[in-house]
């Protein structure tokens, strides 16, 4: 079965049970104790030791210009509160996207990163040698190298739990079904049905985030968001870096051709114009130098 997460941010209450469940099940070490000042979140983002992260998106609305949809207006009547300095929190539990075309997997030179039978992208910790190439080839900024360990880490999609027929720890712990785990096609249908439902309720800015129209080709972590993906630190047009390979190797071929042609031209050209400076071929010259 090809599986996926559907993370519905409109249901998330920001309890961070998913973060804790992930840490506990996967025995992920501490990700530090810092004060970011970013809302009520001090974890900031995904990393080598944070495989689930709840984002706290604070939305302030100034006066009547941009009130939070669905809250402020009863149908057709006068605005119902929240008129000035209205505030809303959007919580979003972020995770590795498990891309259909995964930059990290393509780039990994050791074959440590593999596609599992569930469709997830998995780093085999016994193979990874910490080259760091996956860090720069992830278009979502998910993978990172753990400094004291030396290897790259990210969400495993709870491969061990899935193998045993269990749901990932985060989805199991989620108290509001904001994180749903299941068969990917069913979840895609469910995501778009949820958008319809939300829009019918007047939440017009609800969107599905599943970049199927980019080179990433869709993800195994689908999101229901409100507003633009950038407001959740998600790229609206993620690209798998392998799309640059054709241009890159073409450039390398041009470069190699220039080097080969230039080097040959320089030596043949000067030997033709100054026959005295390049005496004969090497073996003859070697013999000549020995005779001297």
């Amino acid at each position, binding site marked *: 079965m090809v599986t996926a997460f559907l993370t519905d941010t409109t249901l998330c209450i920001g309890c961070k049970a998913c973060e804790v469940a992930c840490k506990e099940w996967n025995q992920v070490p501490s990700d530090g104790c810092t004060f*970011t000042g*970013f809302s009520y979140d001090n974890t*900031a983002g995904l*990393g080598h030791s944070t495989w689930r992260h709840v*984002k706290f*998106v604070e939305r302030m609305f100034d006066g009547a210009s941009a009130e939070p949809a669905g809250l402020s207006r009863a149908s057709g009547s006068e605005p119902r509160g929240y008129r000035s300095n209205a505030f809303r929190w959007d919580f979003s539990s972020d995770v590795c996207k498990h891309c259909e075309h995964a*930059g990290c997997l*393509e*780039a*990994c*030179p050791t*074959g*440590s990163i593999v596609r599992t039978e569930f469709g997830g992208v998995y780093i085999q910790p016994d193979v*990874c*040698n*910490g*080259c*760091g190439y996956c860090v720069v*080839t*992830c*278009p979502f*900024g*998910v993978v990172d190298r753990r400094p004291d360990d*030396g*290897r*790259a880490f990210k969400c495993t999609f709870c491969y061990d739990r899935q193998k045993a027929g269990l749901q990932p720890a985060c989805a199991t712990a989620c108290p509001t079904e904001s994180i749903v785990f299941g068969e990917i096609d069913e979840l895609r249908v469910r995501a778009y049905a949820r958008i319809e439902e939300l829009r019918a309720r007047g939440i017009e800015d609800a969107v599905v985030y599943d970049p199927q129209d980019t080179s990433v080709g869709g993800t195994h972590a689908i999101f229901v968001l409100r507003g*633009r993906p*950038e*407001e959740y*630190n998600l790229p609206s047009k993620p*690209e798998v870096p*392998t799309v*640059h*390979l054709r*241009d*890159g190797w073409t*450039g*390398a071929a041009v*470069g*190699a051709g*220039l*080097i*080969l042609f*230039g*080097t*040959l031209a*320089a*030596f*043949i*050209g*000067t*030997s033709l114009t*100054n026959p005295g400076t*390049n*005496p004969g071929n*090497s*073996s003859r*010259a*070697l*013999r000549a130098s020995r005779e001297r």
Partner: protein
Amino acid sequence: MSDYYGLPTLKQPVWTWEVPAYFFVGGAAGAAATIAAAARMAGGRPELVRDARWIAAVGGAISPPLLIGDLGRPERFLNMLRVFKLQSPMSVGAWTLVAFSNAAGAAAFADWIDRATGGRVPVRVIGNAAETVAAATGLVLSTYTGVLIGATAIPVWSDNVRVLPVHFGASAVGAAVSILELLGHRDPALNLLGAGAAAVETLVGASLELSSREALVPLKQDWTGAVVRAGGVLSGPLPLALRLMAGRSPSARKAAAVSTIVGSLLTRVGWLAAGRESAART
């Protein structure tokens, strides 16, 4: 800067100083192997061929320790040779480096045996064959590093994926020529080749300066921009001008060589640092 508290979307490269150092050493070694083969085929001086082979061999010997030193788990370096993946420039590079280091070492060793035994041991054919393999893999070695960083999610790198292999290749040729010149070689072909590399570097630098794409900001601002620009001037227009005067002034040629080597090194350091800066700006 993202809309989410200005936090970057992408992670910064974790690569340390060994990576730009390898880009320089491996690139120069690869270009030196090509110079050795071209010089021999064109009937160049055997001393030049010998030294070019040795530069390739020494560079091919230094490069693996640099790359291994950068790994998070250096003891697992052999895992690089577990698989061969065409879609991973790092995998292609690892295999290329293995082939290059062996071939370049064999070519230099064969030259040494040939000289030490006065040609009595028939190693010249093996040496020349190894030199050809080193030249072919050297062409890849001096250019693929541009593909390596170009085929990533880092904006300043991927934005320049077409030009980076040519840029790094020209930088490699300039460095190899200059090292040979500092070893005392004064062949006119080297000056000509160095001038050609400096001309390409000048064109690359000009095209980057004339473009105002958003992704190029780390190449122009702050200390990363200063390093990239210094590297560009020192390996482009400055040595080009000096090499055009080299016929009259031998010291100009030496200055060009020193300038090119420093410029080539700064270019790699600058581009790697610009990648970190670029990721921080996402």
